């Protein structure tokens, strides 16, 4: 199935690029401000972005689940998504939510495909039970899916327990920051200069490097501390709960004997 794997990867990468293009769509508003057309262009941005990103997520999921899956794979995916969704709803101190650590562990043990699906579906399930269905959901699903997917790329260090734990903790912390940065980018272009100080806001026609610099300032000023708290919390969870949870997940890999057919 080498050929099929290539096609799957191509679909995933193309859909992600399209998602990013749709995501970056508000930044491409024409520089000729003032004309009615520029206004129209700026205005269809939120809905265009939303619909196209949703379509991209749907297409990836449809492609990954296009072959008949075994009952065991389906059951495991359902249960892991449910556990992850519950972990997200458990409120922690200071807006902390434990959504990352089990997702990273699942991707690491069970591989990229299952990691992607668990990421996407657990965010969807937790939105459905917690009532978080809104325009932000497709981005969250996309980002969480990539978090699970890339966790499957980590080297298998099961011989060196300490190194494995440290690697997973650092990885979770890193993704905590990336997740926050991507989620902020969603509404950043819509914040006007009036709401934040001028050095941090998006303006049309900004050169790329200046835009990056401004976004970095905005990120440092607003969301860094939240994200740092969340990243550190999830890393601590990995350090303290990682070893026993990895043992459980690996045992059930053997007991259930499931395998993903479509691989990326």
């Amino acid at each position, binding site marked *: 199935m080498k050929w099929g794997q290539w*096609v799957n990867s191509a*679909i995933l990468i193309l*859909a992600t690029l*399209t998602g990013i*293009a*749709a995501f*970056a*769509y508000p930044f*491409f508003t024409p520089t000729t401000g003032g004309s009615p057309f520029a206004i*129209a262009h700026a*205005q*269809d941005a939120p*809905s265009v972005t939303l619909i*196209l990103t949703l*379509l991209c997520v*749907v*297409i990836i*999921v*449809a*492609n990954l*689940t*296009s*072959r*008949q*899956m*075994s*009952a*065991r794979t*389906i*059951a*495991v995916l*359902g*249960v892991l*998504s*449910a*556990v992850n*969704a519950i972990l997200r709803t458990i409120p922690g101190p200071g807006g902390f939510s434990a959504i990352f650590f089990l997702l990273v562990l699942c991707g690491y043990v069970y591989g990229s495909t299952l990691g992607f*699906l668990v990421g996407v*579906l657990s965010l*969807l*399930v937790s939105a*459905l039970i917690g*009532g978080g*269905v*809104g*325009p932000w959901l497709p981005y969250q699903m996309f980002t969480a899916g990539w978090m699970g997917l890339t966790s499957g790329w980590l080297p298998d260090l099961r011989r060196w327990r300490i190194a494995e734990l440290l690697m997973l903790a650092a990885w979770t912390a890193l993704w905590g920051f990336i997740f926050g940065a991507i989620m902020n980018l969603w509404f950043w272009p819509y914040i*006007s200069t*009036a*709401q934040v100080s001028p050095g941090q806001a998006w303006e049309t026609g900004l050169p790329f490097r200046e835009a990056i610099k401004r976004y970095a300032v905005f990120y440092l000023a607003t969301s860094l501390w939240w994200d740092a708290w969340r990243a550190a919390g999830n890393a601590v*969870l990995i350090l*303290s*709960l990682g070893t*026993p*949870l990895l043992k459980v*997940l690996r045992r*059930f890999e053997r*007991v259930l*004997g*499931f*395998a993903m057919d479509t691989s990326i």
Partner: protein
Amino acid sequence: MAYHTLTWLAWLGAAAYLALVNQQPLQSILLILATGTVFAAVSRANQPEANPGARNASSHAGQAWKVQGWSAFLRFGLSVWLVALFFNLLFAHAGNIVLLVLPRNWPFIGGPITLEALLYGLANGASLFAVLLVFATFNLGLDAHRLLRWLPAGLYQAGLIVSIALSFIPQLIASLREIREAQLLRGHKFRAIRDWIPLFVPLLTTALERSLTLAESMEARGFGGIDRFAVADSSVSPMPTTTERSTTNLQRGTTLAGLLALLVGLLWRATDSVQWLGLLSVALGILLLFAALYTQGRRLKRTHYHHELWQQRDTLVSLACLASLAITAYTQVRDPAALFYYPYPPYSPWPGFSPALGLAILLTATPAWLWPSLHVSYYETDRG
């Protein structure tokens, strides 16, 4: 439930589209009122005392916490609006119409307080709150299982996974409580983060064991035929037939072509001045992706155990929502200024109001006007 799932989807399309594109404050406030009426009707129908004789009283009682949760969420949204308004008023000193002047030597907030800043804060918050309210109403009006039934056939496995997860969650919460009680009885204390190991590990183990039981019962009922992917030796497992393989290839090819067209179209539209070519490419891409989804679903034959009833009021509400959608789309193409609002100079600070859009907004309130169970419940409470 009062309406068909497709009716709710039409309503979501019309209302969310309006909420996402509209910035004019008067229209936002009208939209909040219209959607608020629907929200009130939905939350009244979800209250357990509203339908005492309902057959599925237990499921309605389960909805009551959802109403409370959403009301709290909306109150939170309202407070965010107020705080943002206050900040915008104090920190943005742009605009020509000065209401009062704070002493210049006060840090940050010193300077003129303008009417424009007030209006902008109000308008921004109103359009944000309208989005929240639309999605809150949709979440409350339609439960997830009914929505999942309308997934495209090609996505049925993903839908199955989500409905398994949704029905597992109450069981998992119950077992979380049981494990916690058992550990407390043993004298375990939950203090540091390490003390959570005896809670999490049994929870994950129970959950995965339950998934094994579930998979066995699914296989016993004939789900998926022979479990060929669980068999490691590929010579034992039956190979996919040629028609199946060609459908898969067709579907993957269409998907790739669609994604390419979409990507090229987006980049084109972003960089080039010939806008309609990019738009055409985007439309072609979307069409191809839908075709791929359709091909994937065509292989499956779907049966429904329970059919939803399509009633006359569903027709009326759907038509109203489609009309509203059409008016909004027409306005966005022909008169985009009717949706745009920016009070600071050089634009005028006074909000406008377009009667056509007002009509489109009022049309989204039709679910509340035609709501069936309200009259019934009044009648029943009068009798009782």
